[in-house]
């Protein structure tokens, strides 16, 4: 193929030259060109290397179906997009592009040796050739194959572009703005409803853009679209998926067609469209013919050559041969000859071609060879000629040429129709599946529905030849390098369904998803199996229709907007104090408050000492909180939690343990009874929504007779924990209306009054083992009360502490954290919490499951403490525990470490763990094997500090 620019014609603007590069070389095209049309006009024939064999490949078509001419577009740092179809890349000044899958260069690619070693890469070669030895697969074969075979390279740096997203609703959505789609949109707009018309090309018109005879009619229709007032036209927009109930996803490309200096605003926009009715006018894609040498650069679709000439003013060569099985190839030949593209001959597999076509073609000076098939193509980087023969087996004849144009018939694009689960019906005349019965409110129109009159043709599988299929380089799927012989081999090796053949040969996979190969593959499988196409099945089309960028799918959901960050009202104060934060269930929590350049260990040691020796303050606002109100509130909690609640007196608190119905711990928390009919529940920080949902489930669907209301109050309360032997001294001057005395206000009690003039629910509770209060105040007043307490605590050197210190202090006391020390398979008994189970209660959620034999068998994991023999050894959370580190591999593992910290209070490391029959092993030595060493530790009760609890009652 030696293409060149025609002196006239096309929709390009010859007064606007545009410079661009391909593989570093400078080229020039015109405004209105695509990368493909500009390169062909510049005489380029070689566009890429094939996936597996690295065969030189040229342009096959001029649209979405292009399997070969995939390029990488470089729009600057971080803006590198691989695998774009050259015929769909709009040209702009300064466009930088490069070819893919070649090394060191496109013309000289050392890996094309794969092509000579083709016998090593038959269908299923992954599963056969490289199976042995097994160890070589990971280390040798796979990395090498991955390096040598493939498409473009993924970008490695962050994408600096941003992407927009929107929802849209309309009465009628039309996908495809060819003539049929435009007419459908105009007709729909008559009813006055909202109409959206989508097309993936730069301008509306579809196939008519390649037919100057229709241009004036097209202009009239475009004017009507603009005048309608209720039609939104989205060009450069691909409807990539059709989902339930007429929900269509579409990606609009906003800036890629512009020179980078002019590309402002979001790069793409994702449209989520809900339509009353969908009209699919996706058109049809021309089918290649399968013959020996059909992938030599210069062999392309006849419709592509026609589009190059009539839309872009580009001739594909100086002497082209048409290989046809369909009338459309003859029409294309006449159209091409009419604008000065030299057509040397038409070879048609058929003997019976409409007489008027034959006459017209002969009159144009084109040789006609009916009943013949091309059997070989000369040339490697470019077509030099073809060999053909009558019936493929007669005496060979040759023609010198520089392009071969294939006209194998048409495949209606039924992709979106299939996404929407519409049925497909085999049409023998088309040799294709056409839309049948719709499931959604949807219609197909135009060529995509088989409504098209461009003559007829015959359906072929492999063109006849004297050379056996196994010796031919006759490609079915260009992008995946699947040859006709691979499909024969798959059938020979027992594949019967097209789904199996597809997966074994990879026919129809990769970025083009079989747009040019599916039907040919089906025909070849059908003839190889000797069964009709309809008995072999059709692979399912799934979204996306074309590859989409992750950016468009993600839209604004990245960085700070990826997940909402929940902040307590103390967050600003903590930030100003230099706190280091961690994220806990979407909450941002202060982890520790370093001062004077402390690292975490030093800060945590100081914070722990302050709480144990004087007083600390902690922002516990993130605790989940639920207000439970109603005459049946106590009965409801009695059924939900393991504990008894009915006898709990107003003003008192209780530690509640919540199981799932399967008997395993799901949450815990301290809750207070404020009145006979009112409870203030707390849950874990991460469990708040789950617990409320679970409670609502039981209340709404199982016990709807109970008169109870549940309200999430997590955000309504700020919670300030003041903990330590001086806690009472600090808050006493601020509190009014509550007797803070040890007897009047004992541990696990709640009182209502004011603190710093703000109404409070004051809990006397402790998650540290020290005398402590958790001060609930309305969130709007939280910062004020926090600062008042901080000021009042200065004489006691009150110390703000974070979640890390909270964890260490509770671990010293053996208080569990659900989800860290438990894992969804732990019962109350496993965790040593059977004291919290109301055994006399007739029922509660999970009670029946606790009676299953499995739940009390020997050998279950139990919660215990571990003290390493060397007090400075810190166990790793998650590390496995064994009884004999020298046992043969695999060493039996009896459990794992769940929590592990350095305890400043004790001057040594401490750990919590769950191990089989743990309580019976107290006093024994166990081992924790780690890389390079084995750590010895002693099993203890899960309690390292103040076992008698005297500090609580200070």
């Amino acid at each position: 193929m030696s293409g060149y620019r025609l002196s006239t014609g096309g929709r390009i603007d010859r007064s606007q030259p545009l410079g661009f590069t391909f593989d570093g070389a400078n080229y020039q095209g015109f405004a209105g060109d695509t990368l493909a049309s500009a390169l062909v006009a510049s005489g380029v024939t070689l566009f890429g290397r094939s996936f597996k064999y690295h065969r030189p490949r040229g342009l096959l078509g001029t649209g979405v179906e292009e399997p070969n001419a995939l390029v990488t577009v470089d729009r600057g740092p971080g803006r590198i997009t691989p695998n774009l179809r050259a015929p769909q890349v709009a040209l702009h000044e300064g466009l930088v592009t490069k070819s893919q899958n070649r090394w060191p260069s496109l013309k000289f690619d050392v890996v094309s040796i794969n092509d000579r070693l083709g016998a090593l890469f038959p269908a299923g070669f992954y599963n056969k050739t490289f199976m042995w030895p097994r160890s070589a697969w990971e280390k040798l074969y796979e990395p090498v194959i991955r390096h040598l075979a493939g498409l473009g390279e993924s970008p490695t740096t962050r994408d600096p572009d941003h992407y927009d997203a929107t929802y849209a609703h309309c009465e009628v959505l039309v996908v495809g703005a060819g003539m049929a789609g435009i007419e459908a949109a105009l007709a729909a707009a008559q009813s006055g409803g909202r109409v959206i018309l989508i097309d993936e090309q730069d301008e509306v018109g579809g196939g008519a853009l390649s037919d100057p005879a229709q241009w004036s009619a097209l202009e009239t229709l475009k004017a009507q679209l603009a005048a309608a007032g209720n039609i939104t036209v989205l060009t450069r927009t691909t409807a990539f998926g059709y989902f339930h109930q007429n929900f269509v996803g579409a990606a609009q490309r906003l800036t890629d067609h512009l020179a980078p200096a002019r590309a402002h605003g979001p790069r793409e926009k994702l449209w989520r469209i809900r339509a009353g009715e969908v009209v699919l006018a996706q058109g049809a894609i021309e089918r290649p013919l399968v013959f020996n040498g059909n992938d030599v650069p210069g062999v392309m679709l006849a419709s592509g050559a026609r589009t190059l000439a009539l839309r872009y003013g580009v001739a594909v060569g100086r002497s082209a041969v048409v290989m046809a099985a369909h009338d459309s190839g003859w029409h294309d030949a006449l159209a091409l000859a009419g604008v000065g593209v030299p057509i040397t001959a038409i070879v048609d597999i058929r003997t019976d071609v409409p007489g008027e076509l034959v006459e017209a073609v002969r009159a144009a000076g084109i040789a006609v060879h009916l009943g013949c098939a091309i059997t070989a193509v000369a040339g490697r980087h470019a077509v030099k000629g073809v060999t053909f023969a009558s019936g493929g087996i007669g005496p060979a004849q040759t023609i010198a040429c520089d392009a071969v144009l294939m006209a194998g018939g048409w495949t209606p694009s039924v992709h979106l129709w299939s996404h929407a689960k519409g049925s497909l019906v085999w049409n023998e005349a088309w040799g294709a599946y056409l839309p049948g019965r719709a499931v959604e409110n949807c219609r197909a129109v135009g060529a995509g529905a088989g409504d098209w009159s461009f003559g007829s043709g015959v359906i072929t599988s492999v063109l006849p030849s004297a050379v056996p299929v196994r010796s031919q380089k006759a490609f079915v799927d260009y992008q995946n390098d699947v040859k006709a012989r691979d499909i024969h081999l798959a059938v020979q090796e027992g594949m019967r369904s097209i789904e199996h053949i597809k997966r074994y040969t990879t026919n129809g996979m990769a970025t083009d998803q079989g747009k040019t190969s599916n039907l040919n593959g089906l025909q070849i499988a059908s003839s190889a199996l000797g069964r009709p196409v309809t008995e072999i099945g059709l692979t399912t089309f799934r979204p996306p229709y074309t590859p989409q960028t992750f950016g468009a799918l993600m839209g604004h959901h990245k960085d700070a907007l990826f997940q909402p960050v929940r902040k307590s009202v103390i967050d600003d104060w903590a930030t100003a104090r230099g706190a280091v934060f961690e994220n806990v269930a979407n909450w941002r929590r202060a982890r520790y408050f370093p001062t004077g350049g402390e690292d975490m260990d030093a800060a945590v040691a100081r914070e722990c000492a302050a709480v144990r020796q004087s007083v600390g303050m902690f922002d516990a606002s993130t605790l989940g909180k639920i207000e439970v109100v109603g005459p049946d509130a106590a009965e409801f909690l009695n059924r939900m939690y393991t504990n008894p609640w009915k006898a709990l007196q107003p003003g008192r608190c209780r530690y509640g343990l919540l199981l799932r119905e399967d008997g395993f711990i799901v949450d815990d928390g301290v809750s207070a009874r404020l009145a006979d009919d009112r409870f203030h529940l707390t849950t874990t920080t991460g469990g708040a929504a789950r617990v409320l949902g679970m409670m609502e489930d039981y209340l709404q669907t199982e016990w709807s007779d109970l008169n109870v209301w549940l309200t999430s109050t997590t955000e309504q309360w700020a919670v300030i924990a003041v903990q330590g032997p001086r806690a009472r001294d600090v808050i006493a001057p601020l509190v009014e209306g509550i007797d803070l005395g040890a007897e009047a206000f004992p541990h696990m009690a709640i009182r209502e009054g004011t603190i710093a003039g703000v109404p409070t629910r004051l809990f006397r509770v402790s998650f540290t083992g020290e005398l402590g209060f958790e001060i609930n105040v309305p969130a709007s007043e939280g910062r004020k009360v926090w600062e008042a307490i901080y000021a009042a605590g200065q004489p006691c050197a009150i110390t703000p502490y974070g979640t890390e210190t909270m964890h260490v202090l509770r671990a010293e006391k053996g208080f569990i954290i659900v989800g860290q020390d438990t894992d969804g398979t732990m019962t109350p008994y496993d965790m040593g919490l059977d004291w919290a189970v109301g055994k006399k209660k007739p029922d509660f959620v999970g009670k029946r499951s606790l009676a299953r034999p499995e739940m009390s068998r020997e050998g279950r994991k139990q919660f215990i403490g571990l003290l390493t023999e060397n007090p400075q050894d810190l166990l790793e959370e998650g590390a496995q525990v064994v009884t004999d580190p020298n046992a043969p591999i695999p060493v039996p593992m009896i459990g794992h470490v769940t929590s592990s910290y350095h305890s400043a209070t004790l001057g040594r490391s401490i750990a919590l763990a769950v191990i089989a029959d743990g309580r019976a092993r107290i006093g024994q030595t166990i081992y924790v094997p780690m890389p390079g060493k084995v750590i010895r530790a002693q099993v203890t009760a899960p309690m390292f500090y103040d076992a008698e609890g005297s500090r609580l009652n200070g």
Partner: protein
Amino acid sequence: MLLIHCPYCAEDRPEVEFTYGGEAHIARPLDPSTLTDVEWEGYLYLRKNTRGDHAERWRHMHGCARYFNAVRNTVTDRIEVTYKAGEARPPEHVAGDAA
């Protein structure tokens, strides 16, 4: 994305407002202690996994927050009907293998 009709709000709303709640019409036994282990296992774990019309629970989580029931065809993923919790499954949407 499905459009789901909330029988309490009486509106078609997008699927993202809802959460799924598993098979419907499985009542918690009034007195679990009277069940054998096998019976309790059935209540806890055994579900129909229907091919075709399947009665299941949904919750209008980001709306009225109510639980309700829906009959959804597990082959077409189409919701045939929704109805309030506690109501019987509409007889015209019986269980069974999809045709």
